[in-house]
């Protein structure tokens, strides 16, 4: 679908544009525009520049470890500082596993919240309810961590894990294998899902509310019930944005540090069971930066930071691409 283009003020080159007289005859008017333009451009450029600088400094600091340890950094499973072994694979996989799990738990819930607020809730309670969900995002990470440590983890250890493992007999599956410690991949994923839920729900709510009334009425007028209208007209219309909302939540989950560190158990082993302790890159950095001994250790931590940054950027790029592809298709 290519719309014909007509010359407009925007596409006309400056040569075609009729000269405009400066009614005030004030040459400083032109200067004001230029200074303003330069300032704004500088502000805008500062953001990508900052990202490039951070990446460059991380890369430079990580270089000693990368050149010494090599591919072992991303393939090795042993993290033994005194022996100079820096294999970050357990932390990398732990980050991916906890983030993806939290996304799988949070996305349907967040979508349900968004649908409730924008489509089903009586108008009187829409705003208060949406506000409460937004407040979830304002709770400091360490508070979630404390709650999880003293409430969620004991509950998982004493009720949920025995129920899943023994009562339902899922303990035979590798995913639910092992003793019920409490601090675990499952605990971290659950905390993360609560933490990212308000972000996904808030964006999803805005997207659903932005679906034109005409689309809703089209479905209703053809005999759709309210639920059928949401399913067939509202959700498909917002689909590409909803994918973006979920990935935004994933981005947050990848980098979340404090609450995860408090409940994941911080064990440097490849994550294999939901019930077992694991590790994430962010937790690894938080736990070790303070007592990093020796240049190689610091450099290895920087390398892990670089990997985390790269994964976050790649996830966001994939999100952009998904949204773009879906928009192009309709």
């Amino acid at each position, binding site marked *: 679908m290519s719309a014909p283009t007509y010359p407009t003020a925007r596409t006309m080159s400056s040569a075609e544009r009729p000269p405009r007289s400066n009614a005030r005859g004030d040459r400083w008017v032109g200067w004001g525009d230029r200074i303003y333009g330069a300032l704004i451009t500088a502000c805008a450029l500062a953001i990508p520049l900052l990202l490039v600088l951070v990446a460059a400094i991380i890369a430079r600091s990580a270089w000693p470890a990368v050149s010494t340890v090599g591919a072992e950094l991303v393939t090795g499973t042993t993290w033994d500082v005194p022996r100079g072994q820096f294999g970050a694979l357990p932390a990398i996989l732990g980050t991916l596993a906890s983030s993806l799990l939290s996304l799988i738990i949070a996305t349907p819930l967040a979508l349900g919240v968004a649908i409730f607020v924008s489509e089903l809730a009586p108008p009187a309670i829409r705003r208060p309810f949406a506000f409460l969900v937004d407040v979830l995002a304002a709770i400091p990470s360490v508070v979630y961590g404390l709650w999880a440590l003293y409430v969620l983890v004991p509950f998982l250890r004493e009720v949920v894990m025995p129920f899943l493992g023994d009562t339902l007999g899922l303990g035979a599956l590798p995913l639910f294998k092992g003793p019920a410690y409490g601090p675990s991949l499952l605990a971290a994923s659950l905390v993360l899902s609560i933490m990212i839920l308000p972000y996904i729900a808030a964006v999803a709510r805005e997207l659903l509310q932005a679906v034109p009334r005409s689309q809703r*009425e089209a479905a*209703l007028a053809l005999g759709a019930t309210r639920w059928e209208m949401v399913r067939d007209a509202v959700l*498909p219309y917002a689909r590409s944005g909803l994918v973006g909302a979920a990935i935004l939540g994933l981005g947050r989950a990848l980098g979340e540090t404090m609450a995860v560190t408090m409940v994941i158990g911080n064990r440097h082993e490849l994550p294999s069971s939901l019930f077992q302790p694991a590790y994430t890159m962010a937790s690894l950095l938080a736990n070790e930066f303070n007592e990093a001994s020796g240049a190689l250790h610091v450099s290895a931590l920087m390398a892990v930071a670089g990997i985390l940054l790269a994964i976050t950027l790649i996830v966001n790029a994939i999100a952009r691409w998904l949204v773009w592809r879906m928009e192009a298709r309709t």
Partner: protein
Amino acid sequence: MLPDPSRSAVQHGLVDVEQWSVWFGATAALSEVSLRITPGGVTALIGPSGCGKSTLLRSINRMNDGAAGLRHAGHIRLDGADIYAPSTDSSVLRQRVGMVFQRSNPFPKSVLDNVTYGARLNGMTDRRELEALAERSLRRAALWDEVKDRLGQSALRLSGGQQQRLCIARALANDPDVLLLDEPASALDPVATLRIEELLYDLRRDVTIVIVTHNLQQAARVSDRTAFLLAGRLIECDDTARLFTSPREPRTEAYITGRFG
């Protein structure tokens, strides 16, 4: 003249509006409107902006349901049954009373998916059945020849006039007894408008049509009967020819001669 077998369908679609009043919050949108819309033919609702003609139209398929502060009194009956009775399922009602809106609103899906949406809601899944229904409905909406080779394409790639006829086809696919149109041509160019009007002329044979229009010439061209509303009240309803040539009410005459509105 031989009896046209298709005319039997026009036995359905009798709309009785009895003492119908609607309020949005404290504002009265319609006050005790009584109007009988007989099966078949085209009834035009005219009147200045804000006179309640769209509210009346949307009352007939309960499209106002859920609006903030909505209250109503009186009855609207479709073939004798009260459409606001608690036992009436509004989604079933809306398949009997189709609606086309001011701005065409196809789903961002294929032409085929648009036309067959109502049927799929009712559980029709057989592809050949759906395609046959789509062809029948698109032919009735005089759109088949233009889109038969691109049923799989996005409906958004059709022109504005084609999109509006697609919306009419989509409503017709439910085989409604009544078709409501809310200024269906006001966003279209004159050629596309003419095509819609010709279409309504053909459709009146087998479906009761109610059209809201701002355009008095359009009302005079397409309708058999015209109802004139002013400030939420029905002023006059008569055969279109009579209403436009010798209205009984001075306010009707003032409106159609352009003295206000």
